[in-house]
């Protein structure tokens, strides 16, 4: 029983990581109906931006560095959309997807060149270094419960990483923020309009190009935030998102490629499935000798979803009555 619970906890802990990459992916898909393969790398470079400001150059507090990194990532995303993608016919997906693959390699190589492919030893944890405004300090609160949230076994015989709870909390906050932006602001409404029907959007006077820029900015800044949050866990290095990307893709497809909430839930489902299936079905010791073998699970899930329910759990099955 304890082992089962532990596997569930591990699964959810990993699931949160998949969710934070899957969510921005869904945002781009909503805007453009294409998969942005560069999403993981854009998030990774965002985490490095924060690293530069917090550790390498200015020793800013990590929360401030994170805000700067989100802004820079947003600008980078808008720049990519404006310069590399806008001139292509949006209905012709192949060239655009190839470009996102190209961006993937460029960013990865660029980051590798600057920071080389080794894990950075000192990665500040945003969750423990939030501005507390004098009333509640999460880092302190967690430390007060360090006998429960610990990498050792706690009194229930479970290992719960201290930052998992914070990570899941932060994920929920991200979802709330996105929900607010998409459903309560004019820009968000226009974004959903473009996502629903580009021609109708032009007919109501929406500047579609600007909204696409906004979508990329939103996706990249939230992607950067996600990467900053998970970097202490999965290490900060240029390849940190390589495998996460596959899991995130499966998560997004599972939840429905155009559903933000679905992607978040999908992340947890993929995390749980992965942990349970690998735990009970697969011979982990033998599998882990093949480094990529655990990736089989999300790929199988991806195939099953595309086969039986291509629109995913919460995705829209193009509703149209004529």
């Amino acid at each position, binding site marked *: 029983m304890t082992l089962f619970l532990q596997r569930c906890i591990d699964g959810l802990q990993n699931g949160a990581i998949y969710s934070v990459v899957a969510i921005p992916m869904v945002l781009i898909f909503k805007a453009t109906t294409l998969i942005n393969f560069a999403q993981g790398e854009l998030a990774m470079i965002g985490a490095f931006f924060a690293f530069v400001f917090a550790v390498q150059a200015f020793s800013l507090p990590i929360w401030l560095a994170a805000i700067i990194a989100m802004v820079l990532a947003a600008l980078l995303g808008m720049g990519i959309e404006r310069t590399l993608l806008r001139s292509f016919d949006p209905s012709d997906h192949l060239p655009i997807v190839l470009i996102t693959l190209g961006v993937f390699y460029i960013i990865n190589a660029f980051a590798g060149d600057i920071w080389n492919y080794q894990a950075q030893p000192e990665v500040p944890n945003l969750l423990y270094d939030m501005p507390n405004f004098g009333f509640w300090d999460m880092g302190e609160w967690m430390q007060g419960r360090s006998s429960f949230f610990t990498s050792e076994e706690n009194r229930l015989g479970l290992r719960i990483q201290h930052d998992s709870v914070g990570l899941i909390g932060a994920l929920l906050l991200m979802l709330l923020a996105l929900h607010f932006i998409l459903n309560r602001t004019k820009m968000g409404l226009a974004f959903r309009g473009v996502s629903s029907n580009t021609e109708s959007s032009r*007919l*109501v006077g*929406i500047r579609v190009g600007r909204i696409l820029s906004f979508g990329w900015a939103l996706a990249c800044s939230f992607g950067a935030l996600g990467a900053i949050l998970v970097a202490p866990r999965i290490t900060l290095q240029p390849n940190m998102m390589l495998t996460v990307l596959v899991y995130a893709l499966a998560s997004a497809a599972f939840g429905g490629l155009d559903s933000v909430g679905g992607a978040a839930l999908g992340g947890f489902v993929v995390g749980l499935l992965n942990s349970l299936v690998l735990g009970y079905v697969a011979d982990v010791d033998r599998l882990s000798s093949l480094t990529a073998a655990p990736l089989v699970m999300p790929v199988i899930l991806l195939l099953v979803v595309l086969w039986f329910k291509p629109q995913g759990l919460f995705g829209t099955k193009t509703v149209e*009555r004529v």
Partner: protein
Amino acid sequence: MSDNMLEVHDLTASYGQVDVLRGVNIEVKTGEVCVILGANGAGKTTTLRSICNMPVVSCSGTIMLDGNDISKSDTGATVAQGMAHVPQGRGTFPELSTLENLQLGAYVRTDNEVNDDIDRWFQMFPVLKERKNQAAGSLSGGEQQMLAVSRALMARPKLLLLDEPSLGLAPIIIEDLFGTFKQINEDEGTTMLIVEQNANLALSIAQTAYVLETGSIALSGPAAELRNDPAVQEAYLGA
């Protein structure tokens, strides 16, 4: 306001090598309902798409909206300048709710009377109010057309372009819809340019009519006159 809400001079349009419009001239007087009749493939839809500069076609010619040259304005800008278009196939946002569709219709507006207008169109089309939170894509064809028209009117246009509003609707609904067009035209003073195959009904609410045949205007004049024209009767009124 100028006398003519819309002036189209020498409009030509082509899809690649194929000429669809060959020098079309249209004038729509401020406050009137004008109808363009024509068979399938005559270029009716292309005319409307060219007027509001939607992609797909390459076109040339001058288009004046209320005295301003809009030939070079992109589609979004023409909305801000007072032209709204209900395209064929409705032009709604299927995944968004009825209410959100109407809110998006007012996207270019900055005044604070948007909610009043929404209430107004809900009064005009009570069924839309019942479907307020339902996805537009799940409405019936007639309801979607009402939504598309209200969505366009939310921009408070000076000129409303309607592309075959009767397409795919039951006759009784079509009749209601055209009655509403007439009422809106009279109450709001919204100038309308309607492209239709249902000639009889369209001519009954229009003041001016044009007949488009293979890319150019074959006939034009007051709607009442065209209605009695033997050629029109034979070709479009089934007489």
